[in-house]
């Protein structure tokens, strides 16, 4: 794995990877339309584009998961035909998927050894341990080979995936939206690793929707739209506005129109809520707050401080051990998810694919999930396909869901379009309370803007919105009041106008806001 250490001069060396005129059709869509893309040794090349633009498809082709309908793939100046990930790995191409593919009950070393050529049959993990330590030192990827994967955070699991690729001799590393699962600190560490790999002559393809991140990390940026390449630019010579314009095909407003907050009656009241996490430990220890109609309460905090459990308890998916939840004046503590949803509580879940949709069911069937049992979609136990279809048609148009047809299985939509489907379903029923967990992660700038605007519209129409997000910028932009969670408790609630970043940062680290009691909830 030797490559030029200095900046590549495209003429002297053939590119590490050259995708030439790649076309890939799926039923109803051209996912890649004569796409040409080059990656040089020692470069970080970002791939940018709206949801469904065809980025993942292009990378899956390079990784041998799909075969292109036409077009050529060249690796280091040789024309190749990549027919499986195994062949891709042999050619020095590694990929870290958006959803990790690790065996959770196994240790790190066992996972890395899995399927690796040349590992001994007995005790493969021991043989690999040394090499693993050496590599993780060299690239600054600290992991303990003997830890079990389920114990690791998302960031650590990602390191394991990267090590898996490196140990297989990957010269080309494909990272599909690597930062959407990371905390900002973890993302910074990842960037350091990438810089080191780049210096060693690796080529890195980096997919992300976060423009700031792309601008600071990448050397070159290729923008795709609707399956085609719009252009390739040098990161040093472009800016956010230009990239957004290339992606979306129009100007993108980064400033949201946000009217003044006129809170109405109380919609959701949470008092002294206690709940345990999956391991039986206390995840919520006395959470108290209220959300009124017409306002957005943002819940900020580092991941894993009880936000997930809070959302689950509020939506009926987890038992509250103590305390109470009052929805529209009615005590709904530990009531069923169906009752809560029928009362007008919408839930945009964190786990989109696993929970938010039924992957094998069609787009139209997914759009009526939760309301399939009520008129007009159901009458005396019979489904009304016409009503379902009409509703789905409108939702697909209103929320700009890109799908080949209403009958397409939801799992075939791109990540961003799956989120739009969920939002369309949850928001179209005029909910009184919207509980949204990380509603924009993994979405392109255009979609992020639209979805934030949608949440603001809910607020204007009188819904009470509870927004849980790790993206502080998002919270500051949308919320009217900000609550900060730390170890299952609310450290304080501040009006957005008065919030200073320092204060929020301190609360996120566990500093309690003194005024919290006197100010009430």
């Amino acid at each position, binding site marked *: 794995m030797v490559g030029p250490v200095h900046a590549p001069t495209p003429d002297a060396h053939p590119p590490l990877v050259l995708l030439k005129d790649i076309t890939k059709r799926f039923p109803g869509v051209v996912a890649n339309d004569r796409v040409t893309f080059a990656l040089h040794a020692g470069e970080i090349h970002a791939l940018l584009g709206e949801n469904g633009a065809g980025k993942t498809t292009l990378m899956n082709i390079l990784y041998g998961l799909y075969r292109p309908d036409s077009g050529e793939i060249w690796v280091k*100046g*040789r*024309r*190749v*035909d*990549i*027919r*499986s990930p195994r*062949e891709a790995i*042999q050619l020095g191409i590694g990929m870290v998927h958006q959803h990790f593919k690790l065996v959770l009950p196994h240790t790190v070393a066992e996972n890395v050894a899995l399927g690796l050529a040349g590992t001994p049959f007995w005790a493969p993990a021991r043989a690999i341990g040394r090499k693993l330590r050496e590599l993780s030192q060299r690239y600054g990827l600290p992991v303990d080979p003997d830890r079990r994967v389920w114990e690791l955070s998302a960031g650590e699991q990602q390191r394991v995936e990267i090590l898996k690729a490196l140990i297989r001799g990957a010269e080309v590393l494909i990272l599909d939206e690597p930062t959407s699962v990371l905390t900002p600190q973890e993302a910074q560490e990842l960037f350091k690793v990438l810089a080191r790999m780049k210096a060693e002559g690796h080529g890195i393809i980096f997919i992300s929707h976060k423009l700031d991140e792309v601008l600071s990390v990448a050397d070159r940026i290729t923008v795709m739209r609707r399956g085609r390449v719009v252009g390739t630019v040098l990161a040093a010579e472009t800016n956010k506005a230009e990239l957004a314009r290339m992606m979306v095909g129009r100007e993108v407003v980064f400033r949201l129109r946000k009217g003044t907050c006129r809170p109405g009656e109380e919609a959701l009241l949470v008092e002294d809520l206690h709940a345990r996490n999956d391991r039986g430990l206390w995840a919520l220890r006395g959470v108290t707050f209220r959300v009124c109609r017409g306002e957005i309460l943002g819940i900020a905090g580092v991941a894993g401080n009880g936000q997930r459990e809070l959302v689950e308890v509020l*939506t*009926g*998916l987890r038992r509250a051990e103590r305390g109470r939840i009052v929805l529209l004046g009615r005590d709904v503590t530990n009531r*069923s*998810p*169906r*009752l*809560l*949803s*029928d009362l007008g509580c919408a*839930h945009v*879940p964190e*786990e989109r694919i*696993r*929970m*938010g*949709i*039924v*992957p*094998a*069911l069609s787009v139209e*069937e997914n759009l009526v*999930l*939760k309301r*399939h*049992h009520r008129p007009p979609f*159901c009458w005396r*136990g*019979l*489904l009304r*396909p016409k009503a379902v279809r009409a509703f789905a048609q409108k939702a697909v148009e209103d929320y700009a869901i890109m799908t080949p047809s209403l009958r397409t299985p939801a799992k075939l939509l791109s990540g961003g379009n799956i989120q739009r489907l969920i939002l369309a379903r949850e928001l179209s029923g005029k909910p009184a309370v919207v509980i949204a967990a990380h509603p924009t992660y993994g979405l392109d700038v255009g979609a992020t803007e639209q979805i934030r605007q949608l949440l603001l519209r809910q607020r204007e129409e009188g819904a009470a919105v509870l927004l849980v997000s790790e993206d502080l910028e998002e919270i500051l932009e949308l919320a009217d009041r900000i609550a900060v969670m730390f170890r299952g408790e609310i450290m304080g609630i501040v009006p957005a106008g008065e919030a200073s970043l320092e204060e929020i940062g301190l609360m996120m680290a566990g500093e309690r806001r003194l005024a919290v009691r006197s100010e009430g909830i």
Partner: protein
Amino acid sequence: MRRLGPLVFEPRLVPSRLAVLGVSLAAVLFALLLASAVFYGYGRNPWQAYAQIGRGLFGTWPSFSEVLRRAIPLILCGVGLTLAFRARFWNIGAEGQLLAGAVAATGVALFLPVPEGWRLPLMFLLGFLAGGVWAVIPALLRVKLAVNDVISTLMLNYVMAYIVEWLVHGPWKGPTMRGFAYTDAFPLSARLSYLPGTRVHWLTLVLGIAAALVVTGLLARTRLGYEVRVVGQSPEAARYAGINFTAVFALVMLLSGGLAGLAGVGEVAGIHWRLRSPGHISMGYGYTAIIVAWLARGSPLTAVLTALLFGLIFAAGDYMKTALGLPFQITGVFNGLVLFCLISFDLLMFWRVRLARKEEAWTGSTGSSAR
């Protein structure tokens, strides 16, 4: 993609209908080929034996009708199981549910003082309920106590078999039957009529085909069917959507077990006219129906076809016993072989096989290189 000798295997994500049909047929033929060893073992020429069986089964309408007769319980149980499997509820208990239906039917036929004309409808109704209730038990055990459905349904088969055994040896043993472990024979009003010249109790057959149509409609067009598909394909999403698991599993198992119960009614009212030992009433229909439903891949209408296939195997077994003097247990061997071949051939549905081009490398590591 793999290369094996001159052949190249390419994966395909969604098998075409034609591939499914072709591969299934090929598997059955291959199973017959393997089964010919059994005939050799008995010192017979397999080809002659197959030809003889073919002529014997397809030669006349009465002999062919035996295929239908054997298929009837398989259709009812198989359709019920497709429904349960669609909800990912592993109902291994059709055998016991069938017996429960047979017991209820016998109770009505022999011991319930009802007007003549009401007797058969009531037998079917109570048979359905008995099978259904017997099946609801494991559904509730799973939802409320997290008891594994495979184990509970399987165990209840044995429980019901012993109940039948006890009934025919004990309280229900017919006084007119001398030493045999039978109940008394059913009155005429409790017996099903046949298609002329056959033993096909057509009413049960009609019920079976109607059940396939109803369950198809139920899955596609009703709220319950929708919830079954959601629960089966994504339990997490079902929880999120507030679907009531208890209601879904209980209803699904009521229907699934109920259909098996109907099969039991058909067997006692159509064939035996009495309750007798469980092995005689069922001959493992409830277990064979698992294969029927599994092969049908969750489609009730396809289950009718696969049930006919296994009806054919059963009928062939009968024929071999009477005409060729081979033991009936051979059907078990056949069922096993067919299942084995279908499962192994299943792989082929997801791989396209074609001849390799010359330049394609053996391991495919380098690919074809130009320049």
